[in-house]
């Protein structure tokens, strides 16, 4: 398939692929096994300007958009979803500043994101607020020229590793969903610490921790947009980043197909390569067709967003939903095709299958994506009446 990428987009893809092949594939099993954060790889990604990719030129970036970001994320995900998550979460954490930050905030924070000096994290989820984000209990109180943060965020990707954290906290409980606000918190701010690093089923190269705020004082200039905008910022951020999660699904699915087919063509049973069995052939055909369909959807939605679309919640939810459901099915089938070898750590398929599972859960579980899509459909149907 040719997606009519520009010469520049192909250059970006090739560069991401080079990083995947030269820097990620040789160490991915070790990172997974040892729960080890991929610091050297993040340095390579920074050196290659891939953090600059999604930052506007005015702030030291290259001003590229969703499609380019999806292309990079897809290539990294082919090699290791843990690494891709680390990279993509930095973009996720940056969106609140990109979308709603003031000129001063952009000038202050974005150049370091572009250079790779600052990794970023996005902190919304708490122990009692997962799918229902409105249940968050972390508070931010204005005292003079400072906001004082108290509370604990849970399962935050890049926790402990990031320099910058965009945090959603309650500023006015009485206002319900309009009572939350978004803030930028820098690592090292007194009163801001990290809980233990989670021991996960997959994406083990990525760091997931609690963020603990205990009378953490930040300058009031670190409020993003206005008080009360917290959930709107969070939702727009997730709308913008979800297509990228779809791209992660496409990447890991393709990675699993590539691994399993190169294994299968050499695996001989009953005197012939297992690729000569129609049952196996049809599995491959379905895996590739679904992955290609997911890729086409992800790229289309990314292009739609990049065209300047205002409302793309439904579209990006569909890209996330489909891309990630496909990835779970395809990685599972890849293990099946490889048989016992697929189940062994000597081959990357089992890791890909473990890794893929998170995609159906984070950045809004797929049930929630279905809610978003259906609600928008119903709303549209009602309006049309």
């Amino acid at each position: 398939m040719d997606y009519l990428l520009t010469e520049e987009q192909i250059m970006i893809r090739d560069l991401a692929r080079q990083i995947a092949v030269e820097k990620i594939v040789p160490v991915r099993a070790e990172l997974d096994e040892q729960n080890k954060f991929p610091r050297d790889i993040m340095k390579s990604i920074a050196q290659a300007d891939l953090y600059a990719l999604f930052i506007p030129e005015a702030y030291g970036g290259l001003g590229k958009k969703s499609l380019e970001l999806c292309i990079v994320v897809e290539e990294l995900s082919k090699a290791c979803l843990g690494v891709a998550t680390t990279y993509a979460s930095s973009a996720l954490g940056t969106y609140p500043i990109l979308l709603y930050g003031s000129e001063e905030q952009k000038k202050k924070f974005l150049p370091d994101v572009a250079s790779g000096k600052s990794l970023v994290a996005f902190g919304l989820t708490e122990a009692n607020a997962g799918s229902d984000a409105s249940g968050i209990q972390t508070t931010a109180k204005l005292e003079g020229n400072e906001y004082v943060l108290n509370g604990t965020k849970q399962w935050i990707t890049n926790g402990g590793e990031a320099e910058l954290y965009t945090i959603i906290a309650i500023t006015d409980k009485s206002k319900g969903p309009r009572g939350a606000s978004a803030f930028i918190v820098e690592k090292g701010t007194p009163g801001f610490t990290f809980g233990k690093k989670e021991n996960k089923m997959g994406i083990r190269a990525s760091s997931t921790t609690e963020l603990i705020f205990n009378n953490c004082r930040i300058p009031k200039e670190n409020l993003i947009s206005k008080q009360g905008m917290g959930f709107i910022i969070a939702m727009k951020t997730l709308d913008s980043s979800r297509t990228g999660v779809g791209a992660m699904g496409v990447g890991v699915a393709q990675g699993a197909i590539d691994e399993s087919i190169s294994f299968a063509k050499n695996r001989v049973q009953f005197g012939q390569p297992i690729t000569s069995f129609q049952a196996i052939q049809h599995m491959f055909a379905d895996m590739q067709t679904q992955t290609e369909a997911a890729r086409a959807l992800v790229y289309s939605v990314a292009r739609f967003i990049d065209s300047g679309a205002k409302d793309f919640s439904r579209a990006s939810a569909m890209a996330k939903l489909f891309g990630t459901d496909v990835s779970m099915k395809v990685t599972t089938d890849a293990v099946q095709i490889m048989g016992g070898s697929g189940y062994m750590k000597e081959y990357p398929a089992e890791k890909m299958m473990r890794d893929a599972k998170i995609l159906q859960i984070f950045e809004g579980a797929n049930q929630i994506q279905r809610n978003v899509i259906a609600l928008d459909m119903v709303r549209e149907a009602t309006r049309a009446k």
Partner: protein
Amino acid sequence: MNIIVLVKQVPDTSEVKINRETNTLIRDGVPSIINPYDRYAIEEALRLREKHGGKVTAVTMGPPQAVEALKEAVSLGVDDVVLLSDRAFAGADTWATSYALSQGIRKIGDFDLVIAGKQAIDGDTAQVGPETADMLGIPFVAYIRKIEQVEGKKMVAERLMDEGYDVVETSLPALITVVKEINEPRVPSLKGKMKAKSLKVAAWSAADIGADENKIGLRGSPTQVVRIFPPSPRGQREILSGSVEEQVAHLAKKLKAQSLI
């Protein structure tokens, strides 16, 4: 610190096959790459620049298509490139190559350090580095695996030896060749790739570098190729591991089994 890196474009030998009848390389359709050792040279130059400031210039002698190697160098971050390309350079052996390179380096002028690869993976002589240094009249240190310190007009570095390493101090400017232990080369940057894409390189001719026409190309090459042949393949080898005692026991058993002891 101004650094010149010598970069050679070579066929990707991992893709090259040998014609068993003529004993020559089958180069058709084989992609060209930067000599792998030269990627370490570029990386080290970039790291020195990051530490000490200055400028990195990549130089190559080769046919017009060698510009691709220079573009790759730019995508990795070198500031400037020089392509020495002229029909008169064709057929150069290592001596004539080194002469042309040394003349090119003289024309660039202001430099503190020249870095070359240990050897090229096609020619494999490891002669160009030392010869070029000699022609420039500057010190030469081979097989650098670590640059410890650069201070003023002095550099301290570790030279890899068969057993261990030497610590060598040299005055600058100097020419060094590097081994793969020295660093892990970076991947290109996007900005670099974009710059490389639009890069126009004007080649320097023999006249441009004031080269003596009797010292370049085939005419300037004293080497006579009598016969080219691939080394005979090594026999079966086995590397023993474990404690010394285990290895000795294992070896003794093997030798006995073959009635050698």
